[in-house]
C-alpha cells in the first residue's frame, strides 16, 4: 500500500464498465490480482483475471452455521458480505516452508528458499477485514521482531476496499467500530451504487498516493453532491442492519471477572473443538512448526502451518496438555479474542466479521456467549438487583 496523502480525498465517480480498466492497470504493474469469486458453493477469494470473475449478481445468506449463495435481481459486483476465506490466506499462508537443509560429508547446510513473492492487489476488501489486516500488522510487524515473510507480502499489497452495501446475518462490525465504512488502510475505497434506472457506478475515495496514481489512468469524473450522499446513505443503512450485535462496554473486565462461569460448561457441551472458528478468523495468527526429514536423512525441511488453540497439541508441554477440556479451550479462545488481546496488542482481536459464527458447524455464536455471561451478571449482581434495569452500574 502506498503512503497516505490527505490531499487526495476528493471523491470521484467510476462507471462500472471502467472497472476492467482498473484491473488492467493493476495487471500492467504486475500485481497478482485476487478478490471475491464463486467457488465450491460460496464466494471465496482467489485470482481474478477479468471483471467477469467477480460474483456478479450473486449474494449470500448467512446465519449461525449456515451459508447459502443466492441470486440477486441486479448485476452488483459486490452485493454480498464476507465468505469463508479471509485475506490472511495470502499474507499469512496456511502452510509455508521456512527453510530446507541438505546434509553431506561436510555437514548440514541450510538452503535459502528462493520463492519469489508477487505483490498482491486485493480487490473488494471490507472494512472489518481492513481492521483485521491492521491487527495482523501489529502482531507480525510492529513488535520487537517482525515476521519477514508476512512483511514482504504485506508491504507491496495494493488494497481496493469496498464499503459494504449490505450487512450479513452474522455481521457485527458496527458494534466493534470496525465498519461498515472503510476509513483507513486502503489505497482506493469504493461504494457501489446501483440505481433503478440502470445506472451502475462507484463513488471512489482515494487513500494513498499510489491509489491516486492508479486512478489517474482510469476514466472518472468528480462526484456530485447527491452521489456522495447516496453513498453515505448506503453505508448508514448497512450500519443499521447488522445481523448481530456485541455489547463491548467493559468487555475486558467482564470476561476477566468471569473465568469461572457456568456458561463455559454450557458452550463446552456444544463446542466440537474442531478449530473452524480460529481457521476462518481473519486475526487468528497461531502456527505450529513441523520439522521433517526424508527417508535418506539427507534432506530436512521446516514447515510452518496454521494451528489452533482448540487442539490438544497447542498447549502440550512436558506431562500433557494444559487445556485438556473443551471448556478451557473455548474460554482461552474467546477471552483472548475479546479481552487479553487488548492488554497484549492494544486493540480487540475481534473485528466483528461474523465468520466464526457462520462457519461454526454447530452455530456457536461469540456474541451470544458474551451476552449470556453479561446477562447473568446483571441478574445476579447484588449491586444491580437493587436497581432493576440499570444494567451498566456494575462496571
Amino acid at each position: 500500500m502506498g503512503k497516505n496523502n490527505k490531499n487526495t480525498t476528493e471523491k470521484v465517480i467510476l462507471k462500472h464498465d471502467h472497472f476492467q480498466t482498473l484491473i488492467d492497470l493493476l495487471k500492467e504493474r504486475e500485481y497478482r490480482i485476487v478478490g471475491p469469486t464463486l467457488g465450491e458453493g460460496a464466494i471465496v477469494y482467489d485470482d481474478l483475471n477479468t471483471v467477469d470473475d467477480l460474483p456478479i449478481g450473486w449474494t449470500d445468506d448467512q446465519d449461525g452455521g449456515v451459508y447459502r449463495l443466492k441470486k440477486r435481481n441486479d448485476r452488483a459486483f459486490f452485493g454480498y458480505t464476507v465468505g469463508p476465506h479471509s485475506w490472511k490466506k495470502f499474507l499469512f499462508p496456511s502452510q509455508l516452508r521456512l527453510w530446507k537443509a541438505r546434509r553431506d560429508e561436510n555437514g548440514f547446510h541450510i538452503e535459502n528458499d528462493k520463492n519469489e513473492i508477487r505483490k498482491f492487489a486485493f480487490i473488494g476488501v471490507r472494512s472489518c477485514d481492513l481492521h483485521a489486516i491492521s491487527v495482523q500488522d501489529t502482531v507480525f510487524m510492529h513488535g520487537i521482531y517482525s515476521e519477514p515473510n508476512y512483511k514482504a507480502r504485506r508491504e507491496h499489497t495494493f488494497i481496493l476496499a469496498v464499503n459494504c452495501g449490505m450487512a450479513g446475518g452474522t455481521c457485527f462490525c458496527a458494534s466493534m467500530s470496525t465498519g461498515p465504512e472503510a476509513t483507513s488502510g486502503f489505497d482506493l475505497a469504493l461504494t457501489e451504487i446501483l440505481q433503478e434506472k440502470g445506472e451502475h457506478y462507484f463513488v471512489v475515495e482515494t487513500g494513498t498516493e499510489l491509489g491516486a496514481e492508479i486512478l489517474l489512468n482510469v476514466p472518472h469524473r468528480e462526484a456530485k453532491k447527491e452521489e456522495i450522499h447516496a453513498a453515505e446513505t448506503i453505508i448508514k443503512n448497512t450500519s443499521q442492519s447488522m445481523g448481530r450485535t456485541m455489547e463491548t462496554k467493559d468487555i475486558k473486565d467482564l470476561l476477566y471477572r468471569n473465568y469461572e462461569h457456568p456458561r463455559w460448561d454450557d458452550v463446552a457441551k456444544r463446542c466440537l473443538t474442531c478449530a473452524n472458528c480460529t481457521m476462518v478468523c481473519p486475526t487468528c495468527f497461531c502456527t505450529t512448526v513441523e520439522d521433517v526429514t526424508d527417508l535418506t536423512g539427507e534432506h530436512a525441511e521446516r514447515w510452518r502451518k496454521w494451528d489452533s488453540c482448540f487442539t490438544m497439541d497447542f498447549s502440550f508441554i512436558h506431562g500433557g496438555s494444559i487445556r485438556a477440556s473443551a471448556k478451557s479451550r473455548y474460554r482461552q479462545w474467546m477471552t483472548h479474542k475479546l479481552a487479553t488481546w487488548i492488554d497484549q496488542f492494544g486493540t480487540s482481536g475481534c473485528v466483528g466479521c461474523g465468520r466464526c459464527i457462520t462457519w461454526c458447524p454447530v452455530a456457536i455464536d461469540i456474541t451470544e456467549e458474551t451476552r449470556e455471561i453479561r446477562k447473568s451478571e446483571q441478574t445476579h449482581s447484588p449491586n444491580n438487583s437493587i436497581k432493576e434495569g440499570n444494567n451498566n452500574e456494575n462496571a
Partner: protein
Amino acid sequence: MTTIKKPKLAVWKFASCDGCQLSLLDCEDELLTVASKIDIANFLEASRRVVKGPYDISLVEGSITTPHDQKRIRQIRKKSKYLVTIGACATAGGIQALRNFRNVDDFISIVYANPQYIETLETSTPISSHVHVDFELRGCPINKQQLIEVLSAFLFGRKPNIPPHSVCIECKRRGTVCVMVANGTPCLGPVTHAGCNAICPSYCRGCYGCYGPKETPNTTSLSTWFSEQGVKKEDIVRSFRTFNAYAEAFRKESIAHEE
C-alpha cells in the same frame, strides 16, 4: 570399516483387505529408497523371501478375529522392537467390527455352508486390545505419505508428524469450503482424525470418518446438530458405523442413537 546394518522391517496381515499393505507398494517413487534404507525382511504380499526375526519394526494390518490370530499377534509382539498398526482394522477393529453389535453365530450360519468348520471370536478387536502398540497410523486405507513419514521418523528417532486434530483444519488449510455450512451436507470432519487431507470435502462430499475419532471428539454435539437438520436416527447410527465403528467415541455415539 563396518557397514551399518539396515533395520529389519516386517509386515503382518490379520483380518483385513490388504489395502493398507498395498500402500507400501504404492510408494512407487519412494519404494527403492525404502528398500535401500530398510531391510524388508517379511512382507509376503511383496516377496516370498522371509528373513527370521527379531524385527526392528513391524507394521501390522488387520484386526483380531480368531483364536489363532490372538496367539499370533503375541508372538509377533515378542519379536518386534517397535510395533506400528496400520489402518482402521488394526487400530479400531475395521468394518468387520460391525459383528460386535450383533451375534456372530447368526452371520456364520448365513454366510457359510458348513458353519461347524468356522472357528472365530465373538468380536473383531484392534491390535491394541491384545498387545502393546507403539504407534497407530489411522485411515481406511492409510495415506502413503503418512506411512513414509512414520518410517522416516522411525529411522531417525524423531516423533512422526501425524496430528490428531480434526479434518476441518485440513479443509481450512487447503481453502476447501465447509460442505456442512455451505451445502447442509452432514460431515463427520469435525469429529474425525486428520490425515487424508480432507479428500471427500474437497469433492463436495461429507467426511465419512475413515480415520476414526479425532482427539477429544464431541460426537454428541455433532449428532445433535445432525438431528436438528433432519438427519434420521438410523442414518446417524449408520454414519458412525463404518470402518471405525468400534472406536470408542463412534461406538458410543452409534449405540446412543440405536432404537
